[in-house]
């Protein structure tokens, strides 16, 4: 219990620090928050705002207060009332925007992760069992290239092949399963390859262990040896990697969401950064970091669950 409290404390601190970092970073970006937001909302990118507009806008959102005051009032509102502010651009509460957009990202990242785990682990096991045979080599070469290709390039190539040539799935959109297939595949490719490689190594390492030999000596059938004895042990390093992959998935989602016009939080974040929609940026970063930390926490839990040798007091 004490362990979890400590862990929760660390997580809260990290979230706070990341928010603070974002806030000050966003404020050192040149360009004048008020003017840019006006450009993105009322007057158009190339037009210039009037002095009057700027003053009106700045005073409405207290943009002239010292930074630390702005930040602390944000934190106060967020902590005390769960109010993360109102978007300058959308004129909606940030919470509301997050509630709108977060599910799409969670869906996309969740589907990609599930895909990455199922495909990556299966291929990794297969590859390990086929060690040094031709299918192992082919798989490993494919995944090597899989991790080495720029994500957006892969996504575009996938669209060209599966949407335009084969007409299997739509180019963009949101809502149906078929809309999700391509983005999820593109997003998970990198993770599939990483997970496969780790699974393979770890599986090989596990298969060389003495308890596997003993299991064989017990006369257990192959599938039982793999499922009961090898898999659980081999999964331990894989789980760590899955945790780290979450981060790269969330980062990659920014690009994939842009290409597929996926209404997720990544695209919202990028747009908000360029529009200086600070409350939304803060909200998105908060959500992303929290998700990341939560997944790591879950990974930790899973690890303890799988490995009885680790027990937290």
């Amino acid at each position, binding site marked *: 219990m004490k362990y979890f409290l400590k862990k929760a404390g660390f997580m809260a601190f990290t979230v706070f620090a990341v928010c603070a970092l974002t806030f000050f970073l966003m404020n050192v970006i040149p360009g004048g928050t008020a003017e840019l937001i006006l450009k993105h909302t009322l007057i158009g990118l190339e037009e210039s705002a009037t002095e009057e507009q700027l003053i009106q806008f700045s005073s409405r959102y207290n943009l002239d207060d010292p930074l630390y005051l702005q930040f602390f009032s944000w934190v106060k509102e967020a902590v005390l009332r769960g109010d993360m502010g109102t978007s300058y651009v959308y004129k909606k509460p940030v919470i509301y925007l997050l509630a709108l957009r977060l599910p799409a990202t969670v869906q996309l990242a969740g589907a990609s992760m599930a895909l990455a785990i199922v495909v990556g682990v299966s291929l990794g096991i297969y590859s390990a069992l086929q060690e040094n045979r031709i299918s192992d080599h082919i798989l490993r070469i494919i995944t090597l290239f899989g991790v080495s290709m720029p994500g957006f390039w892969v996504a575009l190539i996938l669209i060209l092949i599966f949407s335009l040539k084969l007409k299997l799935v739509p180019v963009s959109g949101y809502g149906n399963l078929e809309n999700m297939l391509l983005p999820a595949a593109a997003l998970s490719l990198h993770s599939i390859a990483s997970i496969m490689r780790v699974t393979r190594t770890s599986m090989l390492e596990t298969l*060389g262990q003495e308890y596997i030999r003993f299991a064989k000596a*017990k006369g257990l059938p192959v599938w*039982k040896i793999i499922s009961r004895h090898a898999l659980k042990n081999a999964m331990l390093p894989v789980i760590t990697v899955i945790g780290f992959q979450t981060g790269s998935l969330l980062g990659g989602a920014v690009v994939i969401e842009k290409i597929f016009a996926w209404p997720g939080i990544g695209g919202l974040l990028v747009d908000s950064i360029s529009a200086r929609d600070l409350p939304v940026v803060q909200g998105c970063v908060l959500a992303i970091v929290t998700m990341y930390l939560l997944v790591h926490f879950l990974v930790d839990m899973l690890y303890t669950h799988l*490995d009885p*040798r680790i027990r937290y007091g």
Partner: protein
Amino acid sequence: MSLLEVKDLSVEFPSGENTVKAVSHVSFEIREGETFGIIGESGSGKSVIGLSLLRLLPANAKVSGRVFFQGQDLLSLKPSELRKIRGKKISLMPQNPAGALNPVLKNGLQIEEVFEGNRDEKKEGMKKALELMKQLFLRDPEKLCTLYPHQLSGGMRQRLTACISLSFEPEILVADEPTKGLDPEAKAGAVDVFTKIKTEYKKTMLLITHDLDLAFEVCDRIAVMYAGEIVELDQASKVLSTPLHPYTKGLIQAHPRNGLVPLSGQSPSRIKLPEGCLFHERCRYSDVECSIKHPEIKYYNGGLIRCHFLSLK
């Protein structure tokens, strides 16, 4: 009557462009009800013999020769048939019980999985196994089954693996270095366990060890191995009290009880075996002949010995 007959067994491991000759041309037989010991230094190839009987060596090992068990050649059995023998008719008691128990599975499961079939058969088997555990000086076996291997002491783990190996009542028990890495107290306990197995259960055993005390207590006949070859084979009492081969003599003198006189020199490279007797470089009695001609194994005084008999002159 011989229960298991090993004929001209050789094992090689490819290593880069070379091959390592782990075991060369070993032949022996194990009679029903007897305890047959194989002793030798680490690296003499004795463990490889034990593993090759059940075909548990890594896939890259090249095994030649015959191993007859109840009229079947184990080395050419189909995997499915082999599975019926492993753990049921011939079982392995692995060296390093710490490694042979799967760290992420509960002890109970690791015992239970030996029994295949329906639930009743399993229950029946478990009952027997629990009984056996009590017999083998394990207190509170039910509780033990709910623990994980890392929660047991070294001696307990050793007895647990013994129990797993014995619980299906195999016809032959292959014990591979059962006392390796145990503290003196646990070692003494192991001797008790094996004496019990031998006297009460009347098991046929192949005991592979470098622990001369254990071998002396338990074994009926003993084979001494050096550099992959059997150099001496005879009644245990004869081998250990009046050794004939100079290597056996050295081995016994190196024993702490006998004044810890170490054998000088090192085992020869197994990639390029030296000419002549493999032991001649370290042999006190070696002669010109020894460095030219490889000695054949010969009957001598009721036993077998591989030496030019220089030591006897």
